[in-house]
């Protein structure tokens, strides 16, 4: 249902999104049947394709040409996809988007080679663009995403972290790639530098909100909706916003202690979810997410008049209300 709503939102971009989908598959073409199958495994399981969509919408503010724009939209989605394949090894996840992960379907090593292969194809694809700045932005983004993940592992089960630590982490983990999607879309669309900056900041704010909502959904959604047990983030030691807002809660502290030892029972997981859901941490987290969305909408207001402004607003509002 939610995915339908999102698709409706993108409906007037459908023709170009279809081009992107086709290009994604073609970019991964390989003489190795296994690497092609493993690479497509996650890609064909769906996904919201929000990064390519942000590229397309941003480029519309300039000289839009899908043949140019796809040269960033395709690699950005591939980079996202490759990092998920590796993330599933790190998180030991068996399910994603309702189906087995590459590492579960085959093994960790296959997932490593598949991720590396997708990364390589992404970079090969983006070299169709000769603009050095595009590569500098993308390379910086890739390095920072990994830095964010390294910090996330170092911070696992560490409750004495503050909001600043969390925001810095989610900026790298999620917001940067969405920020870059908007910025690079605007650059290949040859937008005015001020427009590029507005779109870049919009992407950053929306990306921050997106990750906060993701972290909230991990607690309030059902196992079925998530495709994995609710509360998985905390079980793996990731201290997200709702938990940071509850960091003085004694039972949560005990839960984290037990999770770090890997001794949490199913009942304890359900009890933890109950505590988080009944607390005001979810409401406060939503408020923080909304503050980012308000900032995102201000950036939209600063953009020149264009039919795509409404689209940017709608996407931001959808992200704020999404349930998956």
């Amino acid at each position: 249902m939610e995915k339908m709503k999102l698709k409706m939102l993108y409906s007037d971009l459908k023709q170009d999104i279809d081009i992107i989908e086709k290009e994604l598959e073609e970019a991964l073409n390989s003489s190795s049947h296994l690497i092609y199958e493993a690479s497509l495994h996650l890609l064909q399981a769906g996904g919201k394709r929000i990064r390519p969509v942000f590229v397309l919408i941003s480029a519309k503010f300039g000289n839009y040409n899908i043949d140019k724009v796809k040269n960033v939209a395709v690699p950005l989605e591939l980079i996202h996809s490759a990092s998920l394949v590796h993330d599933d090894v790190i998180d030991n996840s068996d399910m994603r988007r309702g189906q087995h992960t590459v590492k579960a379907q085959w093994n960790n090593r296959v997932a490593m080679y598949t991720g590396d292969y997708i990364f390589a194809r992404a970079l090969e694809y983006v070299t169709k663009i000769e603009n050095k700045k595009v590569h500098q932005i993308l390379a910086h983004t890739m390095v920072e995403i990994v830095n964010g993940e390294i910090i996330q592992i170092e911070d696992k089960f560490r409750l004495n972290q503050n909001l600043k630590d969390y925001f810095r982490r989610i900026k790298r983990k999620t917001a940067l790639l969405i920020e870059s999607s908007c910025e690079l879309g605007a650059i290949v669309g040859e937008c005015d530098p001020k427009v590029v900056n507005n779109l870049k900041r919009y992407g950053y704010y929306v990306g921050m909100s997106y990750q906060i909502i993701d972290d909230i959904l991990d607690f309030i959604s059902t196992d079925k909706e998530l495709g994995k047990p609710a509360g998985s983030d905390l079980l793996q030691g990731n201290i997200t916003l709702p938990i940071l807002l509850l960091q003085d809660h004694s039972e949560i502290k005990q839960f984290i202690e037990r999770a770090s030892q890997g001794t949490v029972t199913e009942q304890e997981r359900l009890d933890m979810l109950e505590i988080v859901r009944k607390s005001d941490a979810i409401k406060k987290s939503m408020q923080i997410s909304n503050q980012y969305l308000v900032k995102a909408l201000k950036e939209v207001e600063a953009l020149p008049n264009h039919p795509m402004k409404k689209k940017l607003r709608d996407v931001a509002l959808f992200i704020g209300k999404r349930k998956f």
Partner: protein
Amino acid sequence: MDATYITERIEQLKTNIYNQLHHNTLLKYIEDAKLDEQQLFFLLLPYLNGENWDEDLNTSAVTIAIVHASLDEHDKIDEYEATNKEQQLTVLSGDFYSGRYYQLLAETGNILLIREISKGIAIRCEQQMRVYEKNKLTIREWIHYILTIETELIHKFYSFYEFEKYNNIMTNSLVLLRLQHELLNYQNGQVSTFIQMIQSSVNISESVEKVIAQEVDMLKDELSEYLHSSNLLKDDIKLYIKNQLALVQK
């Protein structure tokens, strides 16, 4: 130029690479990147042999070594158990190195080399996947597998800068070194994935040891002949290679 000079240049290259890959958190929990000195030597071979060399080439050589380090990190991941912190950070160190190589070439604007390296990585990954494919490969195909893994990226580097004339010596040397390494490990009771694959390809009457030893001898003969007859390499370089490969002087 003597062996000491060559070793110093390799050490200098290593220092450059480690400077580019420095990461406090990674160094806190996992080992430094693994750098193969033989591969580094062949990256420097055109320079050591007197070819025109500048900062751009030096940066490119550093990036090729970084890509090797990145892919080698991912080879350390266990097939079924990668849940400890060290393994998790090893996944990320490979990704970090990969990002750093791209960042270095993006800074210098060497977009075309990024393309060539990316193609090389894709080819190498395809080969690495052969281990998990159901098709039975011949011994020759497994040798090609080793060849691609060891040399594909240096091939891309050579062809990008028109140093193809070094392909032959680089390819045969690196394949020989790898096979010698595999043979020694096998004789010491260690069975690598490559050995397992060779085992699945040999006839019942043949032994794995014999098959690899034959390949080693063949490559040694070829290399000895090449080093004896070729005018491409300086004498000091020839001597260095002979010593590294433990070739009998003809």
